[in-house]
């Protein structure tokens, strides 16, 4: 399934929800990148307290209020976006980077290599997803990087499966048979001929997965296995605010939760759009 980028883009642009979502994600990403310029409270975004503003309610100065150490929540959200967004993306990228080569090898070589790799993915897929991530994150120690590694460790088998299935479908094509016939080495065939041909569905799946990855990462952070103080991601912010949520300080958890919710939704709409636009059979449902 090799798809022209141009026509995919054309169909994608017809999906209004996907376009709005892309716009939203772009602005969140820009806010994250340019946070130091965009907010007057950059230092607070990085963790510096201002106890005089402790638990300031939402108002003109702090539209989303301030947290228990008096830090502006808008700034915290912008700096938190750096971590939350990048965690979601990195998880998917790492999972693809690990899963795809394994899947290609399994699908291309077949035999016992295939059998072994597929049984290993069976094992990983039998875990309830968050549980394994929790165990791994606990084993590695709580940190941003380890959280990414832990989630990616639970995610790669999906891509291995997908890559394997795609490899099986292109393996028998004439040009690959031909390449094999003239003695091109397996590694070269896999890298030069198979990989480029199976990338589209993997990228589509990846777009669909980022939203879920952000949710899982937020879950890990929520139970304290993600980003560490003084930095915060959105999951940490919900967790910190929860203690005060029903005691009148509703703004602490509400806004970071909304941020996760809207971002995950945007990724899902975008992923959905990409999936439909890249698949000629689905396009008519547009």
């Amino acid at each position, binding site marked *: 399934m090799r798809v022209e980028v141009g026509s995919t883009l054309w169909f994608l642009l017809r999906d209004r929800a996907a376009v709005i979502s892309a716009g939203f994600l772009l602005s969140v990403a820009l806010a994250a990148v340019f946070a130091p310029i965009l907010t007057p409270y950059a230092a607070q975004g990085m963790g510096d307290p201002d106890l005089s503003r402790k638990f300031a309610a939402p108002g003109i100065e702090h539209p989303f209020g301030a947290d228990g150490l008096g830090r502006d929540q808008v700034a915290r959200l912008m700096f938190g976006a750096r971590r939350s967004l990048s965690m979601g993306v990195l998880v998917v990228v790492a999972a693809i980077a690990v899963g795809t080569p394994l899947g290609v090898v399994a699908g291309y070589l077949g035999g016992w290599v295939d059998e072994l790799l597929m049984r290993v993915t069976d094992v990983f897929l039998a875990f309830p997803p968050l549980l394994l991530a929790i165990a791994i994150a606990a*084993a590695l120690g709580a940190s941003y990087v380890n959280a990414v590694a832990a989630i990616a460790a639970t995610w790669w088998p999906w891509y291995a499966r997908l890559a394997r299935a795609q490899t099986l479908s292109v393996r028998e094509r004439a040009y690959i048979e031909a390449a094999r016939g003239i003695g091109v080495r397996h590694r070269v065939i896999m890298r030069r001929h198979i990989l480029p041909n199976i990338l589209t569905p993997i990228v589509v799946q990846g777009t669909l997965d980022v939203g879920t990855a952000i949710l899982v990462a937020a879950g890990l952070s929520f139970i304290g296995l993600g980003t560490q103080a003084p930095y915060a991601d959105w999951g940490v912010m919900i967790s910190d605010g929860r203690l005060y949520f029903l005691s009148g300080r509703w703004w602490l*958890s509400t806004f970071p*939760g909304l941020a996760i919710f809207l971002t995950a*939704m945007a990724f*899902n709409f975008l992923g959905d759009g990409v999936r439909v636009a890249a698949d000629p059979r689905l396009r008519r449902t547009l």
Partner: protein
Amino acid sequence: MTAITFLLRRLSLSVFVFIGVLILTFFVSRVIPGNPAALYAGARPRPEQVEAIKVKLGLDKPLHEQFLVYVSDLLDGDLGESYHSRRSINTDLSIFLPATLELVIAAVFIALLVGIPIGVLAGAYPKSAFDYATRLVAIAGVSVPSFWLALIAQFIFFSSLGWLPLGGRISRDASLFYPIAAQTGFYLVDAAVSSNWDAFFDALHHLILPALVLSAYPLGVAIRMTQASMIEALAENYITSARAAGLSQRVILFKLALKNAIMPALTVVGLSFAYSITGAFLVETIFSWPGVGKYVTEAVLNVDFPVIIAVTLVVTVVYILVNLAVDLLQALLDPRVRLG
């Protein structure tokens, strides 16, 4: 393929998966930094106590020996004891697992009860306003962080409206004055079979909010899957022939098409069941729901690895069984798959 060979093949694969999960969990949990003997010894142990416990628990032995001991205990059906509470994990799980399953089953049940009809209608009327609204709901369902939704739900239904309790599985009054005689550990079932209706409604009252929150994800999945398979089913020739025979829209959608559409949707139930168990891990903590999720979350914070391993194994078994059940159900629903 007959039922027996089908089952045998699936079971042997499951056994392999189980062994893999066991090995993986065991070794991952043993590299967790921390000092399990110190944990077992309780608050602020003395060095000699820690040493004694290390020997008692066999933690001084090489890892592969520890593993063999664990496996032989496991074959006896013994999941070991918690290093934190020192309680038998079998006993703990006999309380916590039914609590989680009750919650997850309720959530998946709600998701299917609501999601399937919505998915059917959205699939029947593509590009209608209802279809678009449904897409929004479905995507919202799979995008909302469950732990955040739980907070918002508490804020609305407990703090603001006061309709539903904040957390717990049963009220204090119920457990004091009309306690449920534990049989299955599923409070609704236990209360119903003993005709303890006060306790039944009390338990139900406590179940609603966490179950609703937890149902968001499987609801989104159920809607999307049902919708997709409805669209596929409605394009089939037999639907055209049913229309040509003048059958009503209701019969066509909810009897003929649904039965065909439900099977792909059912496979996803297995998956969303697993996701819901995962979701329960976070939601249970917020609703003080005494289930496996809360149990394992605490175990992780305490590095209580016998509990971590046991929960992982048990939940994996539940997961495997659910998937097996879904496969069997599919086979039963589809006359084309012959069972024996």
